[in-house]
């Protein structure tokens, strides 16, 4: 690296060329802990999110492509959220998730609480013996979809693909590479309790299960 030779010197010298904000406060002066009250307005989020969806919709050929773009927008957030939420834990319980279950619990509880102010509704493991690598996180009413009405011809689309991207980022960051997709499962008929019910299908890669088996033996 370029600054190898400079190691050990007072760092003030290297600061030349860096522009500080007028109050001299950088990102390093800010606290990582957020107070309970500093929540964001849902209206402004909905507005921003609708713009993100229409931005992703430009120059795409199909619904899959659009969902993939939304997924990509969420991915880096997940990667960063993982470290941020861990450092906010009390020091005693600061541990890295080592198993699939502890990782999914972290997502269901910590990530959901941080993003949506509540826990995810359910956590399920695929009952199909052919797909032991699939897990499902169920959200009855995804916050991101609150003000989104999907046109009939695009009924396959679920904009919670963005949240799926965040989950994928958390999994990838924790060294559990996975593919995460969002699927609408709520019934369309009258009287349905949760018409917007969404399942996030988490499909881990083979090596994760392999390692899990090794750790279990242990």
């Amino acid at each position, binding site marked *: 690296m370029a600054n190898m030779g400079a190691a050990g010197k007072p*760092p003030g010298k*290297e600061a030349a060329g860096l522009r500080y904000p007028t109050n001299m406060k950088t990102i*390093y002066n800010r606290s990582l802990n957020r107070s309970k009250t500093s929540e964001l307005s849902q209206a402004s989020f909905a507005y921003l999110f609708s713009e993100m969806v229409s931005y992703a919709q430009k120059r795409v050929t199909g619904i899959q492509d659009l969902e993939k773009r939304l997924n990509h927008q969420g991915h880096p957030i997940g990667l*960063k959220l993982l470290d941020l939420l861990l450092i906010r834990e009390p020091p005693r319980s600061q541990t890295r998730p080592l198993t699939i279950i502890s990782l999914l619990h972290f997502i269901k509880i910590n990530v959901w609480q941080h993003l949506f102010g509540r826990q995810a509704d359910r956590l399920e493991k695929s009952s199909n013996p052919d797909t032991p690598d699939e897990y499902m996180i169920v959200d009855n009413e995804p916050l991101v979809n609150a003000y989104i009405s999907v046109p009939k011809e695009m009924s396959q689309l679920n904009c919670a693909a963005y949240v799926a991207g965040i989950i994928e980022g958390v999994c990838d960051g924790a060294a559990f590479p996975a593919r995460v997709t969002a699927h609408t499962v709520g019934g369309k008929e009258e009287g349905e309790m949760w018409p917007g019910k969404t399942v996030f299908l988490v499909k881990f890669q083979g090596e994760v299960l392999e390692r899990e088996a090794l750790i279990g033996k242990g």
Partner: protein
Amino acid sequence: MSYYFAIIGTQDNPLFEYEFGTSKQGGDGQSRFSEQARHLNQFILHSSLDIVEEAQWTSGQLYLKVIDKFFNNYISCFITAGNIKFLLLQQPTTPVGSTSTRNSTSIGANPTSPQAEEAIKNFFTEVYENYVKAIMSPFYKVNMEIKSPVFRARVAAAGRKYL
């Protein structure tokens, strides 16, 4: 006592490195590595990554303590949730064992003593906090080199404070 600290990304790519000496017991904070050792340090540090990868799945702790030793070099590891490794190589001025038992409790003389472990833990924890702040920047992508002089100054301050 000289220290060499590096942050290693998920692709085993270095993101940040910093060299310093002890500031405790009248130390001037300057490292005392020879020119040759400087190159060797990078090798030693990276060669311990294999051990880190084994150790990281046996315990969920972030701080893995001293995980590797190469002659008179001790390597401590701290691993973040995002699988970024903080590695600290420490080289006591006099090889461990040749010092008298009287000062073996000092951080400098015995890198595996509980006091030294605690001091390094505090150092890593402070660096971790600053690292998380660094990645909170919307312009930073995971595995990018950390170039911020403010971050470098913060690491230097943590080094002075604890080691």
